[in-house]
């Protein structure tokens, strides 16, 4: 088994959910594929979707909702498989 850490491609504000009144994109235990959206990063009034980049199960979420993150910061960890 190996782990994959999803990194933010951008600096900005990280969002775990598509809208404040919506469910989070993923939670610990969610099964994802490489093209699953796991969060949004807002910068310059644009919202960029962050993709999982690997298939497996979400084991940890590192970035807090609405926190400022930088490029390369870990967003969440996926147990590949």
């Amino acid at each position: 088994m190996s782990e994959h850490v999803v990194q933010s491609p951008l600096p900005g504000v990280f969002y775990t959910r598509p809208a404040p009144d919506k469910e989070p994109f993923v939670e610990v235990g969610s099964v994802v594929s490489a093209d699953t959206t796991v969060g949004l990063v807002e910068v310059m009034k644009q919202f960029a979707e962050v993709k999982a980049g690997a298939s497996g199960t979400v084991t940890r979420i590192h970035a807090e909702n609405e926190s400022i993150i930088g490029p390369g910061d870990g967003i969440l960890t996926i147990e590949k498989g």
Partner: protein
Amino acid sequence: MPVEILEPGLASSIQDRGRPGYYNVGIPPSGAADLRAAAAANLLVGNPLDAAVIESPYMGPVLRFDEPTVVAVTGADMPVMLNGEPAPQWESFAVAAGDQLTFGFLRAGARIYIAVAGGFDVPVVLGSRSTYALGGFGGFQGRNLKKGDVVPVGRPSGGVPGQVVPETLRPVYSRDVELRVVLGLYDYRLTDAGRSCLLESEWTLTPVADRTGFRYSGPVLEWEERVQPFGAGSDPSNIVDAGYPVGSIQVPGGVEPIILHRDAVSGGGYAMVASVISADLNLVAQCSPGTRTRFVAVTLDEALRARADSADRELKLRQALGAAT
């Protein structure tokens, strides 16, 4: 020789030295947000200073070259890869037909500049190839670059690999930044406490930071009370409409100062409490969200000396790269 945009990045655009002279009719100067980095990229590939480059904020594009040429990347600290192998920054290098240029995660700064020998050959509009995306003109079809765009390149006038910007002429980016400002024209609208607060507080750049303006979070500024004159809005931060200098700082409602940048609207009804000096606008362009910022008041004479120093640095850069001066 065209360059194909395989991925555009976040908001990549074609920019040159800008389009001065039309701000009075509402058309901003545009041009590279960091003019010095763009100039360095052009000089490295043997281009004139006013050649057009690609500006990419926060995230690099993926480019494919159809013919051999010479390329340079300057500006923000971001890993450069040619066909997956590391390539240098602040140094010209050769690319072969079919080569792909990609980028890693941003490490410091905010905007990279990509120059190709010959410059990007988009139509000149009102004297410039710069994109003004809000106005829908200039650059490549009046907009930011999109996946699949094929951008023409002009005939090179020179350009050799291995040209290097000396370390001493490269910027060092920090997450703690001091920006020099000249107070006015409307700082008298702030109370003494409001003015002190502007100059003594630490401001944090928000994610609302693009070619139009850079918005900062921090404390609330206090305004002098007055009966608003005819034509001014009701908020104490409102004035009767006036022209906005590029670099001017407005504080709508007393919260979240905004530094206007090269794609700014030319006027409006918010009091400008200070203006970032022209020599520091390049530095503003290399700030990414979260950058801790202080505004340091300087006199107009100091601002003009800083502008002369900035011109002197550009001259040194030209000399270092063997450009005709």
